[in-house]
C-alpha cells in the first residue's frame, strides 16, 4: 500500500496541478469575457463571411460561410506545405549528396548554399524573395513569353490551362497503368527470389505509363487542348493576363523561400545519413559482385534512410508550421484568412485561435504518423 502510493504520488500531484492550472485559466477567461460582454460559441462558423480571398482551391466568395473560409485557408496551407516538402526533399537530397562529392566545385557550392540559407532568418528570406522578385519581375505588358505560352510577371506566373475532353477515360488509363506496374513489380520480386532472374522493371514501367494513356487518346476519345493566357488591358498602363491558370507571386515566393530554407536542413540530414553507413558495408557489397547501382540501392540507402528519416520528419513539421509566415506577404493561408481576417470580423479570438491551434496540431501529427509508419517499414526487421 505504502509502496504503491509512493509510486503514484508524483503522477497524481502532476495531474491535479495540471487540471487546477488549466481550470484556473479557463475560469479566469470565462469571468473576464463575461465582464466585458463577450459571448463564447462556435455558431459564427455557419454565418456568411462577407470577405473575399485572393486564391482558393475550392469555390469560395464572401457569400459562403466562415467555415468555408476556414477550409480555403487550410487547403492553401496544405498546398504550400506539400509543394514545399516535395521541392525541399528533392533539393535537399541533391545538395546532401553533392556535399559528399569529390568534385571540389560541386562540394563547395553545396556547402556554401547550406551555410548561407540556413543562417538567415526565414521571415527575411520570405520578404527578400517576395519584394525582390516583385521589383525584378516585369509588368504584364512587358513580359516576354517563355516557350510562347508561359508568362512570368509581377502579378504572377500565368500558364496555359488544360481543357480536357473525356478526362475520366484518361484518368482511368493512368490508374490502370499504375496498377499494372505494381503487379509487375511484385512479380519481378518473386521471380528474383525464386529463380534469381531479373527483368527490366523500370523500362517496362515507363513504357506502360506512356502506352496506356496513349491508347486513351487514340481510341478512347480523349483530347486535350490548351487555353493560352491572353494579355488584357485594364487601363492605359494597367494590364493583366486573362484565361489560363495564374499562380500568384505570393505562392511562388513562399514556396521558394520555404523550400530553399528547409532543403538546407534536409541536405544535412542526408549527408549525415550517408556518412553514417560504414565504409565496410560498401566494400563488402562490392566484393559479393553487386554493381555500384545495386550497392547504393540495396545496401547503402536502406541503412542511410534509417538515419535520415527521423530528423527529416522534424524538417517537414517545421516547414508546415513555418508556412504560417505567409501572412506577411499576403498568401491567404490558414493564419491570414482564418486567424486574421475571420478573427477580426467576428472578434471570436479564443474560438478561432483554438481552432487554428488544433488544426496545426492535427496537421503535424498526421505528418508524424505518416513518417513514423515509413520509418518503421524501413527499420531493421527483428525476427
Amino acid at each position, binding site marked *: 500500500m*505504502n509502496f504503491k*502510493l*509512493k509510486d503514484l*504520488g*508524483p503522477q497524481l*500531484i502532476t495531474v*491535479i*496541478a495540471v487540471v*487546477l*492550472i488549466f481550470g*484556473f485559466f479557463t475560469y*479566469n477567461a470565462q*469571468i473576464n*469575457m463575461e*465582464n*466585458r*460582454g*463577450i*459571448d463564447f460559441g462556435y455558431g459564427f462558423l455557419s454565418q456568411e463571411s*462577407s*470577405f*473575399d*480571398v*485572393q486564391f482558393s482551391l475550392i469555390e469560395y*466568395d*464572401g457569400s459562403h460561410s466562415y467555415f468555408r473560409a476556414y477550409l480555403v485557408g487550410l487547403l492553401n496551407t496544405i498546398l504550400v506545405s506539400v509543394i514545399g516538402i516535395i521541392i525541399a526533399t528533392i533539393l535537399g537530397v541533391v545538395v546532401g549528396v553533392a556535399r559528399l562529392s569529390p568534385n571540389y566545385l560541386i562540394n563547395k557550392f553545396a556547402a556554401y548554399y547550406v551555410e548561407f540559407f540556413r543562417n538567415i532568418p526565414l521571415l527575411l528570406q520570405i520578404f527578400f524573395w517576395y*519584394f525582390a522578385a*516583385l*521589383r525584378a519581375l516585369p*509588368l504584364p505588358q512587358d513580359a516576354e513569353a517563355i516557350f510562347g505560352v508561359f508568362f512570368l510577371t*509581377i*502579378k504572377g506566373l500565368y500558364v496555359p490551362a488544360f481543357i480536357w475532353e473525356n478526362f475520366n477515360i484518361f484518368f482511368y488509363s493512368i490508374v490502370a497503368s499504375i496498377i499494372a506496374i505494381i503487379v509487375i513489380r511484385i512479380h519481378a520480386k518473386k521471380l528474383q527470389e525464386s529463380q534469381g532472374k531479373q527483368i527490366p522493371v523500370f523500362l517496362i514501367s515507363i513504357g506502360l505509363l506512356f502506352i496506356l494513356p496513349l491508347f486513351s487518346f487514340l481510341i478512347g476519345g480523349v483530347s486535350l487542348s490548351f487555353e493560352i493566357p491572353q494579355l*488584357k488591358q*485594364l*487601363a*492605359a*498602363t*494597367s494590364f*493583366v493576363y*486573362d484565361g489560363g491558370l495564374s499562380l*500568384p*507571386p*505570393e505562392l511562388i515566393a513562399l514556396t521558394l523561400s520555404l523550400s530553399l530554407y528547409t532543403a538546407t536542413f534536409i541536405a544535412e540530414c542526408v549527408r549525415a545519413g550517408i556518412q553514417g553507413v560504414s565504409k565496410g558495408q560498401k566494400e563488402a557489397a562490392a566484393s559479393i559482385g553487386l554493381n555500384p547501382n545495386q550497392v547504393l540501392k540495396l545496401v547503402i540507402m536502406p541503412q542511410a534512410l534509417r538515419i535520415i528519416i527521423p530528423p527529416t520528419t522534424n524538417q517537414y513539421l517545421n516547414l508546415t508550421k513555418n508556412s504560417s509566415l505567409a*501572412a*506577411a*506577404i*499576403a498568401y*491567404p493561408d490558414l493564419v*491570414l484568412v482564418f486567424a*486574421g*481576417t475571420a*478573427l*477580426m*470580423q*467576428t*472578434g471570436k*479570438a479564443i474560438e478561432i485561435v483554438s481552432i487554428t491551434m488544433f488544426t496545426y496540431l492535427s496537421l503535424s501529427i498526421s505528418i508524424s504518423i505518416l513518417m513514423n509508419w515509413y520509418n518503421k517499414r524501413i527499420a531493421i526487421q527483428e525476427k
Partner: protein
Amino acid sequence: MFKYLKQLTSLVAMVAVLFTFTTETMAAKKSKTLKNTQKKGFVRCGVSQGLPGFSNADAAGNWTGVDVDVCRAVAAAVLGDANKVKFTPLSAKERFTALTSGEIDILSRNTTWTLSRDADIGLTFVGVNFYDGQGFMVRKSSGITSVNQFKNGISACTNIGTTTELNMRDFFNSKGISYEPVAFEKADEVVAAYDSGRCDTYTTDKSGLAAQRTKMSNPDEHIVLPETISKEPLGPVVRQGDSVWEDIVRWSLNAMIEAEEYGITSANADSMKTSENPAIKRLVGAEGELGAAFGLDNEWSLRIIKQVGNYGESYKRNIADTGILPDRGPNQLWTKGGILYVPPAR
C-alpha cells in the same frame, strides 16, 4: 509519503493564492482603469504602426498625430502631463485583442465605429475624432479618373482585419466587377506591393491613402480617386465595463472639439479664465465642478487645452500642415459647415 504531502500542501497554497488574487482584483473599484493609470503614472495607448497625421513615430521615437493627441489629452486630464503616455504600435489584427485583454487602456488607432464591433466584442466606442470614407488610389499614368473605369480582373491591395475588406467586396459586387484582393497584415507591405506594381489599385480609408501616398517612392505618380465608397467614422475605443474611464476618454476628446468651437487655444487658455461666457469658464475650470464626476480636479480640461491644444490646432499641426489633407472637409466644426458637433460640457 510525508515528502509528497508537503509538496501537495505547497501546491494547494499556491493555487489558493492565485484565486484570492483574482477575487481581490475582481472586487471592482469604481474605475479600475483610472486607479491603475494613476498608480502606474502613464496612460497605456494603442496606436497604429505608422500612419502619418494620425499616429506616427519620428526617428527619435516621439509619437505625433490626431489619434496620438487623444491619448495625450487623456494623460493631461488624468495625470497632469500630456507626455505621460506609453504608446503600443498595433496591427489592425492585434488591436482589439490588445484592448480587451488589458494590454492597453485606450485604442486610438483610426478605428472605424461599426455596430458589430461596438456590440459584439467587448468594446465601447467613445466618439469620432475623424470622419472618413474608403477610397481608391491608382497610378496617374493608368489614366483612370473614376472608379467607373475599373474593369474585370483588377487587383486591389489592402490590409487584413479592417472594414476595408468588406467594403471592397460590397463595392465590386455591386458593380459586377471581378477582382483580385491582395491583403497584407501590415500597411508598409501594402504600400511596398502597390508601389512595385503588384496591384492596380490600393484601397483603404481616404485619410490613410493620403497619408500613405507620402511614403511612395514618387508620390506625384499616384492619385486618390474622388469617389467614397463607405462611411468610416474613426474614433477612440475603450474596454466595455468601465463607464467612468469611458466618460473620461469621451470628454477629453469632446473638450478639445468644444474648445475650438469657443475659440480657446493653447495660447489663450489661461486668459480665458476671466471670460464673460460661462461655457468658456466651465471649460477652463474657472466655474462649476465638472471634473468631480470623473474623480478628477477642475482643471482637467484646461490642462488638455494648454498641453495638447484644441481640435483645430491638433488637426492643423498633424494633418493640414504636413500636406496630408489640407482641406478639413466634413471634419470642420458644425458652425463652419462641417459635421463636428459635440454635446455641451456642462
